[in-house]
């Protein structure tokens, strides 16, 4: 056994060290690596194992030691790791670095030689007792057994380690349990008794561990080791000097005992039948269910307690699957476990509490809750179920409803209607496939449509204003009707043109001209002399040429009226054409 130690503890300082329990191991053996941090304070940092490529490492715990020597306190923290080699060869565990308060601390590298499988290491521990087969006449030895070599997944396997001792121990034995990787473990209480093996009296200490393999395949149980300091053979008189020598010098011999590794063949559970749900539970169970009361109101909370009790791995028991109860709202299941390790098997009960809230009134039956497990004794699945439970549910106040809802419910009941459950209304058929086409107020046609009545209003307003002006402004009114009047007389003249009534014709023509000019200039047509007419027209910018023509035409009309015999039809036609053209020319200028 080789230890590499590093430094002593200083009050202000810390030191780190690493050690292994053996520098030469076989491939199917395990290495125990201890990392220690020691220092003056009690608040020591933790050390982390870096990944080691050649080993599979598991943490095996942390322990702390505080000692006060001569008033000076020192403490150390130990971290234990189990390293399983992956391949044979010579390996170096590199220095492990700890950074603490700005300083770097380093352990020494450790050389480890891993021998091929099956080869016993060149033991550097001469006192080791390994072979239980050669246990005859040994003072100390350990045996490890399992109660079965073949087990189902999750079936209980009892691992028993017995420590036989025929000599007194000088220190408490340090037991390192084997690794039970791949199994759920449960420690049973240890016992002591004495027995005789090959005629020799031994005190036996027995440690039982219950194993529940987690998966099918080979479950390997490593070797357990036990380290103790024993009296040298032949015994010693406690009152002799030797005893005290031994006591103070740490005398006696240090013995490390190792058990043989074991393996259990774990077989998978057979496929679950149709009626049995594969819950993975293994053992033998019974089941019971209770309600915390027999009557409740709607929306009251009722607790359903389902208890599964029996033998098996109670702690990993899955919660029984509750059926769907449409009349109840279910809440999360809370479980608690009670185990009894008094006997050889793990017994106990698991309690699953579920809060149920009745949703509808009436007499309700809670359907049986069933639970399936694999019975290893009968080698088949069994299903146990609870008895159905009855619950009387009376109508109550629904959650989230205002207080007056209860009253409304009663009124409804008097109408013969009882509101049982309120829920959202059901889906609708989608009929309006066009969907929302945007907002109509932003559409150009809509804005244009609203412009139309505006135009109508403007038109009506303009017309009304014009009407008002016509009725209030004589000059405007006369100006507006001037051309209308002129056209009227011209039309009259034209009809007289062919009727050989020259007198009337010329009268109408002169009237058309005079009335037109009088209306346009807002004067009375009666008594309008030619000179006054000429003055009015020249004031309105009528050219000289036109004025003369008007003058001439009116003189001609007057002349004909006084001497009607001298006219001929040709003259009349010419006069009409002249009158018409003059009026249209004046129209352009006078407006």
């Amino acid at each position, binding site marked *: 056994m080789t230890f590499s130690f590093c430094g002593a503890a200083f009050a202000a300082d810390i030191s780190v060290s690493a050690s292994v329990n053996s520098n030469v191991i076989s491939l199917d053996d395990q290495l125990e690596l201890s990392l220690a941090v020691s220092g003056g304070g009690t608040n020591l940092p933790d050390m982390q194992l870096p990944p080691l490529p050649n080993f599979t490492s598991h943490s095996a715990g942390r322990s702390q030691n505080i000692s006060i020597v001569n008033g000076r306190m020192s403490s150390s923290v130990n971290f234990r790791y189990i390293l399983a080699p992956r391949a044979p060869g010579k390996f170096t565990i590199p220095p492990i670095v700890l950074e603490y308060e700005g300083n770097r601390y380093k352990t020494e590298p450790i050389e480890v030689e891993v021998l091929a499988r099956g080869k016993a290491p060149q033991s550097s521990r001469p006192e080791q007792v390994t072979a239980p087969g050669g246990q005859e006449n040994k003072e100390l030895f350990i045996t490890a057994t399992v109660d079965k070599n073949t087990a189902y997944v999750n079936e209980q396997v009892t691992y028993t380690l017995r420590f036989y001792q025929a000599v007194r121990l000088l220190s408490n034995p340090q037991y390192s349990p084997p690794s039970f990787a791949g199994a759920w473990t449960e420690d049973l209480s240890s016992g002591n008794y004495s027995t005789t093996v090959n005629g020799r009296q031994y005190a036996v200490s027995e440690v039982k561990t219950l194993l529940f393999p987690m998966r099918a395949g080979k479950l390997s149980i490593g070797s357990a080791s036990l380290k103790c300091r024993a009296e040298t053979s032949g015994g010693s008189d406690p009152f002799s000097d030797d005893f005290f020598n031994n006591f103070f010098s740490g005398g006696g011999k240090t013995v490390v005992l190792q058990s043989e590794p074991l393996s259990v063949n774990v077989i998978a559970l057979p496929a679950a039948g149709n009626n049995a749900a594969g819950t993975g539970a293994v053992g033998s169970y019974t089941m019971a269910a209770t309600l915390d009361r027999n009557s409740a109101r709607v929306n009251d909370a009722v607790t359903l307690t389902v208890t599964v009790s029996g033998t098996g791995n109670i702690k990993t028991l899955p919660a029984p699957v509750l059926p769907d109860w449409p009349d109840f709202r279910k809440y999360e299941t809370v479980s608690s476990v009670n185990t009894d390790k008094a006997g050889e098997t793990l017994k106990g009960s698991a309690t699953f509490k579920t809060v149920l809230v009745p949703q509808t009134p009436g007499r309700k039956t809670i359907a049986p809750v069933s639970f399936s497990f694999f019975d290893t004794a009968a080698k088949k699945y069994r299903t146990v179920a609870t008895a159905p439970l009855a619950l009387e549910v009376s109508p109550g106040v629904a959650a989230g409803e205002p207080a007056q809802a209860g009253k409304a419910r009663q009124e409804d009941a008097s109408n013969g209607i009882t509101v049982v459950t309120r829920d959202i*209304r059901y889906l609708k058929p*989608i009929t309006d496939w066009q969907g*929302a086409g945007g*907002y109509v107020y932003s559409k150009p046609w809509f804005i244009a449509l609203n412009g139309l009545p505006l135009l109508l209003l403007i038109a009506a*307003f303009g017309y009304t204003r014009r009407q008002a002006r016509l009725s209030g402004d004589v000059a405007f009114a006369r100006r507006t009707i001037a051309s209308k009047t002129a056209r009227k007389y011209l039309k009259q003249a034209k009809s007289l043109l062919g009727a050989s009534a020259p007198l009337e014709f010329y009268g109408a023509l002169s009237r058309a001209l005079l009335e037109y000019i009088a209306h346009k200039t807002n004067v009375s047509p009666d008594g309008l002399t030619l000179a006054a007419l000429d003055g009015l027209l020249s004031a309105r910018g009528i050219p000289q040429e036109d004025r003369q023509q008007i003058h001439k035409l009116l003189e001609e009309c007057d002349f004909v009226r006084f001497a009607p015999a001298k006219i001929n039809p040709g003259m009349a036609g010419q006069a009409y054409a002249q009158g018409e053209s003059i009026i249209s020319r004046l129209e352009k200028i006078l407006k």
Partner: protein
Amino acid sequence: MTAPLFVTAGGAHPDVTQAQQAFEQGDYARAISLYESIITAYGATAAGYYNLGNCYYRNRQPGHAIVSYERALRLSPRDGDIRYNLDFVREQLKQPDRPLSEIITGAITSYATINELSVATSFLFIIMSCALAAFMLSRRRFLILAGAGLVVLTAGSAAWLGLTIRNRQLTSWGVVISGPADVRNGPGMENSVGFTLPEGRKIIVLSEKDEWAAIGLAAEGLKGWVEKKYIDKI
């Protein structure tokens, strides 16, 4: 976006049938995605949003359900089923009673759609214009009385339309879709939490900045910033 021009009369659309089947089988997550794709593909419809809200409610997402019902209600404001379900979900979330002013504004602005009010206002305006024009031309006494009445009606309708547009278009409403949502005193996780909002709470989105939205609660007079993932705009 392509809208189907023909939908066989009486026969439901295949996507709708699928969505309804998913709902009936209790596969609400699938029903949600189907209804959402229907709305994206064929346009927003009141019934589509209503059904989507039902799926969200059954899928225990009441905040999303409220957003969907609110959208449905905008398209079909006097639909009893939509209003019933919206009130039902709100009640389930135990939302506090809204202040009276908000109830009144809400009742006024959520009675009719903006399009309905636009058409009504426009119709009244045309009738009013005709009446006034007829009065101007004929000077009949009853026409000026009718015109005056129509002016009042048109002004009222226009005011109603304006209020509705302001409340719906110009105010950006949102709903807390997962709660409780932390509302912080600034946009960023480094700002302290001012208050928290429960799921389903309706809020006003004042402005947006990156992943944050400034929100306000009119009745309580509270303002703050919330991560956008907590809210959905109606």
